[in-house]
């Protein structure tokens, strides 16, 4: 994801994103390799080159003669990291530790130096051993590693860290504080406020017990376009602002077929022009799988594909066609995603692998697309619950795109927000998260209102 230092700055020319990012990376690597602290924490906004950093840090540690373990949260993340690591340095001995019932992605077969096993004893001599936190938790009675890298540390639960922290002496924790917090299916209020609350994020626990750890952050988002980074930064990262790595003219989305003047086409044009589009349906209270809104989402996707979209970006001179696999639909609930998949199938659009990705915010975390279509979490709802207001959910949905984001929503969400101020209990000792979802939602809505297309299907 990360480009080298050859990026031109924004129109102003003063801010050089490549240089800024390189300086931040150098500082992080210095802390990791030569620092004295047992842990280093890196906060990374969406698309800031987190995985690239992890790969780079792993290679530098290996080059310094260290052996290390990498902890990621899902099997897909582990496979992806192992693939990147082996691609970047084919001669590095990598071990992919996996569960007995979850074989690794066959994509890893093309790397001869990636050894796969479900037993850590087989991988003991590999320079880098990589597995999910859940798998590491089963590893017992081994000599601890000197170094570890924990990826997506903000999505890791404190109790998961408790299980694996005995395996390493020092660690680099990398993650995005703005995304969805980990959760538990059972109540954990009884531990709220304890620094080791098992349902809290691993980084919170780590910092509560080790307040002096060096904290870095990556200052540049390479994914988000210049149209999106200021809004996402302002709405979700008010105290740790970041910039986009590209300027306003660097990316362009254009369509071969002119719009037919319908609602979906107008919102597509608006989004191509400005990077954001809001397709507003008439106000109404609806069930979760609001058929009209779901059909509107499907119609927008259909038109995106039909109109021969091409994307121009800093990645290459030649325009790239906007294909189905570069489009994602994000929802709050799984049944909404299923409804959208159904509606897409009716329009002849393939969803799933190779086609349009249709999923919930939780599952879209960490992924990247050219254009995203989002069914607003509060659309058509009579109430605004903590789930729907969660800052991370909206942040994930609004920060997956490289070019444009189109939000489909029923009118009246601003009023709904005003009727439901946050009423979550405030607990002693719990770090209050800023900004709260209510505020972030308002910020995003206010911005989207400037790109509104009202449509009555």
């Amino acid at each position: 994801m990360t480009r080298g230092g050859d990026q031109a700055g924004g129109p102003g020319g003063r801010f050089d994103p490549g240089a800024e990012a390189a300086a931040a990376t150098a500082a992080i690597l210095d802390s990791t390799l030569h620092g004295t602290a047992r842990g280093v924490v890196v906060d990374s906004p969406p698309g800031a080159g987190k995985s690239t950093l992890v790969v780079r840090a792993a290679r530098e540690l290996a080059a310094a003669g260290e052996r290390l373990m990498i902890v990621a949260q899902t099997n897909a993340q582990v496979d992806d990291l192992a693939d990147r690591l082996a691609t970047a340095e084919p001669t590095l001995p990598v071990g992919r530790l996996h569960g007995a019932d979850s074989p690794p992605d066959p994509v890893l077969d093309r790397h001869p130096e990636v050894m796969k096993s479900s037993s850590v004893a087989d991988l003991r001599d590999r320079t880098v051993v990589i597995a999910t936190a859940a798998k590491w938790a089963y590893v017992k009675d081994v000599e601890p590693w000197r170094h570890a890298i924990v990826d997506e540390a903000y999505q890791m639960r404190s109790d998961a860290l408790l299980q694996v922290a005995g395996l390493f002496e020092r660690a680099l924790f990398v993650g995005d504080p703005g995304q969805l917090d980990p959760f538990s299916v059972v109540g954990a209020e009884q531990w709220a406020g304890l620094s080791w609350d098992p349902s809290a994020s691993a980084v919170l626990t780590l910092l509560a017990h080790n307040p002096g750890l060096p904290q870095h952050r990556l200052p540049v988002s390479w994914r988000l376009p210049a149209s999106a980074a200021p809004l996402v930064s302002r709405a979700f990262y008010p105290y740790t602002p970041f910039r986009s790595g590209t300027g306003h003219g660097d990316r362009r989305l254009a369509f071969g077929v002119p719009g037919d003047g319908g609602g979906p086409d107008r919102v597509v044009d608006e989004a191509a022009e400005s990077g954001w589009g809001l397709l507003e349906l008439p106000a109404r209270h609806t069930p979760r799988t609001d058929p009209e809104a779901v059909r509107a989402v499907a119609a927008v996707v259909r038109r995106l594909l039909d109109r021969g979209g091409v994307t121009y970006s800093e990645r290459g001179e030649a325009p790239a066609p906007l294909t189905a696999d570069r489009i994602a639909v994000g929802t709050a609930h799984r049944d909404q995603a299923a409804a959208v998949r159904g509606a897409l199938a009716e329009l002849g659009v393939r969803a799933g692998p190779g086609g349009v990705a249709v999923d919930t915010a939780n599952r879209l975390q960490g992924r990247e697309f050219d254009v995203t279509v989002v069914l607003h979490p509060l659309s058509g709802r009579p109430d605004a619950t903590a789930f729907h207001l969660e800052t991370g959910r909206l942040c994930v949905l609004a920060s997956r795109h490289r070019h444009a984001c189109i939000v489909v929503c029923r009118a009246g969400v601003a009023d709904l927000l005003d009727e439901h101020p946050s009423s979550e209990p405030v607990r002693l000792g719990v770090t209050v998260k800023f900004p709260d979802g209510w505020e972030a939602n308002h910020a995003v809505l206010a911005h989207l209102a400037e790109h509104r297309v009202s449509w009555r299907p």
Partner: protein
Amino acid sequence: MNVLARAEAVARGRAVPAATVRHHRLAESPLVFVPLTTAGEAGAPLGAMIGTERTAPTVLVVPQPLDRAQRFDFFAGLAAAILPAIEEYADDVETEPATRNREEAEVCADAPQMIVPNAAALEYVRLLGRSTRYLRTVEDPEAPHPVPVPVPLLGRWLTHLAERARTPGSALLVAMTDLLTRHWATGQSAMEDQHLGGLLGWIDPPPGMDGPAAAARAQTGRDRHGLLLSPPAGPATDPVFDNRVLAPALERYDAARSAGTAGPLRVAEADVRRLVTSQLQPTWDDVWHGVDLLRALPEGAHVAERWKRDRWSFTGHRDRVRAGEPPQPKRDDAVTAAQKLAGRETAQARLFAQEALDDPLVMAARRLGGEAFAGTVLAVEMTYSEGRRPMPRPVLTVATPDVPQADPGAKAYRALPDTRSAQSAEVLDVVPARGSAECTVTVKITGGMGTGKLPREGSVPEVGERVTFTLFAHDPRGGPALPEAEATPWTHGGPPGAGGTGAGGTGPGDVPDVVTAEDFL
């Protein structure tokens, strides 16, 4: 489903069943505990009714709730009523044979079950446990305000019961409103369902009345003295009762006490006692009414298995008490908290699966949510696994009206009669419904067919047979073991008691707050 059931309840004017079997263990003689607290002081008990016999409750009343000595007497009375009911179960044990992971052990053949009226009362049990388990007893010569010997033990048991109640599917301590709302859906909000009288009005209205009317009568109906016909099920009292009736009675009691005359004091005390009993009695009857309603339902097939885990929990605490271990700490350390959370998450997953397997109504909700599907087998094709010993891997094509949300490769499970573990399968493909055609799912059965070359008889369904697959495991396992508390890693503050920001014992919360000027306002 639940929303639909509630809408139906409104239309019908009475509650509709939300379950076809009873998903909770209901003891032969449950220990019913109805507490009342005093307005004005958090947690100060006013009285309680307790017992295992509906006709013979023990009634405890605190005539002057602000008097600490009387409060301790109340605790002593509670201990005298509760502890024998608990210890009755402690010595009747059965032997659990040794397994691969465990030595032979003894487990109590049965365990006590305490039923309180509502969730607030359950929370009050927790508070009682917290406030009594550290009290110093008369055995301690230096204790400034000693309590009778069994009181701290009572606190430990109440704490254990309340802590166990947080485990999904447990039944050592349950709230009647939770039990009833699990099995019936009313036409009122979840908040209103916390009123036991109102809830029972919906479920079993008196003759000549419908659910809403009965609930309204229970919630707001007052007699000619202005008192509620069905006082709140506690532990809070009705403010009208407090102001108009209880306050004057307490004043009379106080006056008689300061006058020091025995006769009027006895009269005044009996007066308070009669009043408090009048508030307790309707709730007491309501709880037993609920017990009757629940007993009419047949017990779910997996309830006994969950109850066995409660018996283990009970046995474990009995052993800790007998071994002379100290009372439960104020706060859990990092490892204990993680352990409890992991245990409860497993229990939640198990409950989720077992309720669906026991109850077609719950399974219907799972099917509606895309987490299970039921249908008819259209075709069975026999295939074999690759490898040195090819094993049967029959592929079924199932037509179903459901819309399972499964990607190819997802695991599916089917309950088999006469076997303990579920049959495992893999979803190969889901073809969504088109027009009038049903959704078709192809699944490959991967287990539960014995070890032979041919599948065990009856283990593979035939064409035309009706099958139900779930996309969740039937017997979810817990995760890996956590480190010992002494091995708490540096990320979590190191071992408890190690100083600094260490977990447990020496956390910042244990330092008393600094006294400020506001403390003397």
